[in-house]
């Protein structure tokens, strides 16, 4: 391999890349924007107040007591619906995910239940779409409030309670857990998407043929891309981390292993981009093909949503995705300071990278 040729390729590609405004945006501004937007959304611990629409057909004290308890949770804003309104029509017209109804004589039924042990429990009714996350949250809040009301009326107190403790450090914020996911997505999208497009453009513009007429070898070209993306993405990581730390007081740390991981990520995802590039004929279809592979990877890797509750088959697919191991490794070293686990995940990323690199360099042709 010739260092002169590799560095010339890195320098030339770097110039062309940085002169492309959209590429520069996705490398630097996009991850910073993601951190700022998600930070603004979840920066206060990840929970924001939600509005619950309530129709109270009951005039009694107990429905009011439940509403008071709900207000005290500081999790919800309550908006009342007129008792004259047809609730199901109202929900449809306003596309509500959830609404609560206290039936007429709700308080009367509770009073009756206190004196007659065989009477049925009074019901607070939840209307809505159980597939929506809002429905689940409201159901949880209402359930807890109703349990609390039952304790109050029975003059009982809970004997066991839940206490939440952060695994890594009490100082860590939501953004610290979120940052590795942002880095993972940035590395994947930059390296894989742009390499797919580069390979397609090389073919359609005849650059590959031109390169084949020089002394540059395919493996030198591949290595040059790997070097370029490692430098680019490490810079992007440092910038994102700096902005995140400045705005959200993050405490996760960038270790030497983090940089090694960025290099491994650049290696595996540039190789994947090249592999995809071998089957694409034109630049126009490059983004569509990269997207078809990249988007499922993004969601199935658990970068933003934990997959523990997902079906077993989906979790099995997740185990076959390099981004999963890449994200886990970043989280291991940056948040949990568990370098042993990070190294295991790094090894898996490395093995996948080598396999994809060899495949890409075999299948990629600059000639006929």
């Amino acid at each position, binding site marked *: 391999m010739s260092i*002169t040729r590799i*560095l010339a390729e890195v320098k030339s590609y770097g110039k062309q890349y940085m002169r492309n405004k959209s590429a520069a945006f996705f490398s630097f501004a996009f991850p910073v924007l993601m951190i700022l937007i998600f930070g603004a959304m979840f920066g206060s611990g990840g929970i924001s107040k939600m509005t619950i629409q309530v129709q109270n057909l009951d005039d009694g004290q107990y429905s009011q007591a439940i509403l008071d308890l709900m207000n005290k949770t500081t999790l919800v804003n309550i908006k009342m619906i007129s008792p004259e309104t047809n609730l199901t029509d109202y929900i449809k017209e306003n596309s509500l995910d959830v609404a609560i109804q206290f039936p007429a004589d709700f308080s009367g039924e509770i009073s009756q239940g206190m004196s007659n042990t065989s009477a049925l429990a009074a019901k607070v009714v939840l209307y809505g779409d159980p597939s929506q996350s809002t429905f689940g949250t409201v159901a949880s809040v209402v359930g807890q409030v109703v349990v609390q009301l039952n304790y109050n009326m029975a003059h009982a107190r809970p004997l066991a309670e839940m206490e939440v403790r952060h695994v890594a450090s009490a100082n860590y914020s939501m953004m610290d857990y979120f940052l590795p996911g942002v880095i993972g997505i940035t590395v994947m999208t930059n390296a894989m998407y742009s390499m797919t497009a580069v390979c397609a453009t090389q073919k359609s*513009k005849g650059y590959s043929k031109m390169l084949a007429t020089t*002394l540059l070898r395919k493996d030198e070209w591949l290595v040059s891309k790997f070097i370029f993306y490692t430098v680019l993405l490490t810079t992007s990581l440092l910038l994102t981390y700096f902005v995140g730390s400045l705005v959200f007081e993050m405490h996760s740390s960038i270790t030497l292993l983090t940089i090694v991981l960025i290099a491994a990520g650049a290696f595996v995802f540039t190789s994947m981009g090249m592999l995809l590039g071998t089957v694409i004929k034109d630049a126009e279809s490059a983004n569509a093909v990269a997207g078809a592979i990249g988007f499922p990877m993004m969601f199935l890797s658990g970068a933003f949503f934990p997959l523990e509750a997902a079906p077993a088959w989906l979790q099995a697919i997740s185990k076959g995705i390099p981004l999963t191991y890449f994200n886990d490794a970043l989280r291991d070293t940056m948040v949990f300071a568990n370098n042993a686990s990070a190294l295991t995940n790094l090894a898996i990323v490395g093995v996948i990278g080598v396999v994809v690199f060899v495949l890409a360099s075999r299948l990629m042709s600059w000639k006929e």
Partner: protein
Amino acid sequence: MSEAEIWQIEEDEGLITQAYPRRMAKRELKDGIIEVERLSKHYPPDLKAVDEISFTIKRGQIFSLLGPNGAGKTTAVEILEGLREPTSGSARIFGVDISHDYDKIRKRVGILPQNFEPFEMLRPLEALEYWAHLFNMKKSNKELLELIESVGLGGKKDAMGGKMSGGEKRKLGIAMSLINDPELLFLDEPTTGLDPKARRDLWALIQGIKKRGATVVLTTHYLDEAEKLSDDVAIMNKGRVIARGTPDQLIEQYGKETYIVLVGVGQTAVEELAKRGITSHRENGNVVVPVSNPRELRTMFAKLSSIQVEFKDMYTRRQTLEDVFLNLVGQKMDEGVLRA
């Protein structure tokens, strides 16, 4: 160019070295820098893109592969550039079998591919510096600027590749193909789609490259271009070489007639000539009289002078490669497309 002149240029430019001694260069001058033997390229199920072509290209010449689109010119030349594998046959460049040892000669060859596009986001100086490094060469800015000037891009040295005109892009492509000071240069349809001025500029550039001692292999579908530039022409059609020689040889061998052109006369002249038993036809506002044997020209001039036809001027026009192509293929060629 004489043999002595070539030696002088080669010694001046350091091309004659221990690794490439004069005796090797002499052999190439005598026997050919490129030797192609029954070269074929077939594609399934039954396309014979190149069909058993053979030729030798001598050192220091401009050799043109001339033919319509789909004749097999680019396929043939891309085999010689090491970009395609032949189905059968062999080719040697500088005495090296290109199917096995192309890497040994890569540094001595310059290539301008068909439909060349420069890197859109690089300026000429940057592109040339980059390209030099890909040949393990380090060129000073002065050398690169001289190269840019030599291809006529001095006024565009700060323009991005993507912002250049078609002619400027090709000039940059030629500059890139010259970065390694090649002894052999392949130019695949360098003037296709360019305006007449840009074409003439490139012709001058190609002639200049020849003067520097390089051998040029040119593919083109422009008959005037091949005639103007080439020392040696192979006409290709349907994958085969159907005629071979210098433009003069081809015209002599396949051209049928010489013409006398009477300028500024009308249809009445054609009728008048017909009465005297002289065949003629109108062409671009003139009257053209074909003469099958050049030795009969003097007699025909005498006959035409005796006829009472007013004309502004009279000159002879010999057949061109365009006429040769028409005689060989039976169709005219327009922008690479055969027409009835």
